[in-house]
């Protein structure tokens, strides 16, 4: 795939994800302005920052949906900057979206099977002739899809269209789909958005269980309670720039972070009403 350079040698020694001096400009606007951070195996890393700080843009650069205008993204030492999203997914990087992006008209099980696309062993002739290989791979896919739906604790109907599930359940399906890819690294874009208190507690538990599988987690999240409880490290962005990187304790005390969230008196931002007070 274009842009994917196989560079053996730096395996496993370096970080799982290494973002180096990432830049993304939209015309004159610097959505991401020199972001660097890394994530290691088993990490739970949160990327926080006020609205419009460039968190989702950074995610989109890492997963190939935007082409960064500068900097590098390495996964296990391989440069994936600017590669196709599917090529990056093939490297074991999976993601969810800020606004649910399920395949609404398809069954819940099919949604999860999407994650297995790359691993399913069958071709068009197997499908046309319904060979034993086809049946086997379909059976395995169904079993595995059910396993992931159990894992995320889905209670609703799995055989019906995904759009029929309540919102919180759809969030679970999206995580199950991302997990079915068998990722080394899972990027979750605001997984707690729109969840009620009970669902947030279950999410916290789910995130810990995902981490226990050995999958590194990077999440964008606005719910500070969740972030502080689950993260091992926190990266704080403001106006596309990284303003802090450290443990939850360190970040909580960082004056630059407080300023970003509470604002300075002499500067009045257009989005003042959206500044969270917590």
């Amino acid at each position: 795939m274009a842009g994917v350079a196989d560079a053996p040698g730096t395996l496993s020694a370096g970080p799982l994800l290494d973002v180096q001096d990432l830049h993304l400009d939209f015309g004159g606007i610097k959505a991401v302005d020199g972001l660097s951070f890394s994530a290691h195996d088993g990490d739970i890393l949160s990327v926080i920052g006020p609205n419009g700080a460039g968190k989702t843009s950074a995610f989109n650069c890492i997963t190939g949906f935007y082409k960064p205008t500068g900097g590098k993204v390495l996964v296990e030492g391989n440069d994936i900057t600017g590669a196709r999203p599917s090529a990056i997914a093939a490297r074991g990087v999976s993601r969810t979206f800020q606004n649910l992006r399920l395949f609404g008209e398809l069954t819940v099980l099919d949604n999860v099977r999407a994650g297995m696309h790359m691993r399913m062993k069958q071709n068009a002739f197997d499908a046309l002739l319904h060979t034993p290989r086809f049946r086997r791979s379909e059976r395995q896919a169904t079993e595995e899809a059910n396993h992931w739906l159990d894992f995320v604790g889905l209670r609703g109907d799995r055989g019906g269209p995904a759009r029929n599930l309540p919102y919180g359940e759809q969030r679970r399906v999206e995580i199950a789909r991302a997990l079915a890819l068998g990722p080394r690294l899972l990027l979750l874009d605001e997984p707690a958005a729109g969840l009620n208190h009970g669902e947030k507690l279950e999410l916290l538990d789910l995130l810990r269980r995902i981490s226990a599988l050995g999958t590194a987690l990077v999440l964008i999240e606005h719910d500070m309670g969740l972030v502080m409880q689950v993260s091992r490290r926190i990266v704080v962005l403001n106006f596309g720039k990284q303003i802090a990187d450290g443990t939850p304790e360190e970040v909580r005390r960082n004056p630059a972070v407080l300023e970003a969230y509470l604002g300075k008196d002499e500067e009045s931002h257009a989005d003042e009403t959206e500044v969270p007070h917590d």
Partner: protein
Amino acid sequence: MTWNRKKAPTSADTPRARVLNRLLGERRLGWIGLAVALLAPFVDASNYSLSVLTSAALFVMLAVGLNIVVGYCGLLDLGYAAFFAIGAYVSGVLATTYGWSLLATVPVVLAAAVLAGVIIGGPTLRLRSDYLAIVTLGFGEIIRITANNLDITGGPSGIYGIPGLELFGLDLSSPVAFYYAVVVIVALAVVGAARLGRSRMGRAWRFIREDEDAAEAMGIHTYKLKLAAYIAGAVWGGLAGILFGAQLSAISPQSFTFLWSALILLAVVLGGMGSTPGVVLGAVFVSVLPELLRDAADYRFFVFGVLLIVVMIFRPQGLWPSQASERTPARRPEVQKEDAWQA
């Protein structure tokens, strides 16, 4: 975003419709459809009705082929008749000018269809769907006009004297034998398209239709898969073209106008995009109805048009819409509980 349908809640969502759909499983439905097709000549075996039935069967094949592109993958193709024309012309030229048997032309037609699919799909499938629709529309016209101007395709008068179908020394050129041969081939084509639709590849096509970005994020190379859908559609169209030439024994550029592409697309939309029983039903409807309306004489196409509008008003999802439904075995509740509490 690919060419997305607006989902209005319809009667297809009611529990009664779901139960009905499950009762009429696709497999059982297929056998019923095949039985109807096989028994039809016993009702009326005049040459006229056999020709109508054969055309309807061919139309079914075209519609399930286009359904791969439009219904499964969500790519709006307005020039599908081009692949049909390529199949008919390639096999027609080889059979008349070079004296090949129609069966021998099949590999060449397959290769030509794949090639045409790659040539037209290669550059255009990178575009978002509105552009694709325009380019395919142009492609359909290019093929027709090329056939109109080349010597080898017989120019405006086309090719005549295409031999009838002969399979393994068996002469199938009589209307009845040809009809049955077509029914068998079309049945295989329908089953094949449906099977592709339920496979890993078919699911990937639907993922692309539903949300291209999310599909890409799941490791699906959307461009390659769209091209695969396009090529599959081309193959179905090309093979139908061979049979079309064999049925009429003469083809000309007038046989492959935009109206054909539009009618095939109409059959897919009318029947229910992505739904095999729907598309088969839609194809039969679109091809047979104008014949049934012959009594209305000059008003035939007027009545046809009004009926289509009425159908689309009352069944915007199509006559037999596709719907996501899978049988899921009853799950033991303790499994879920155990997982949910696992820390």
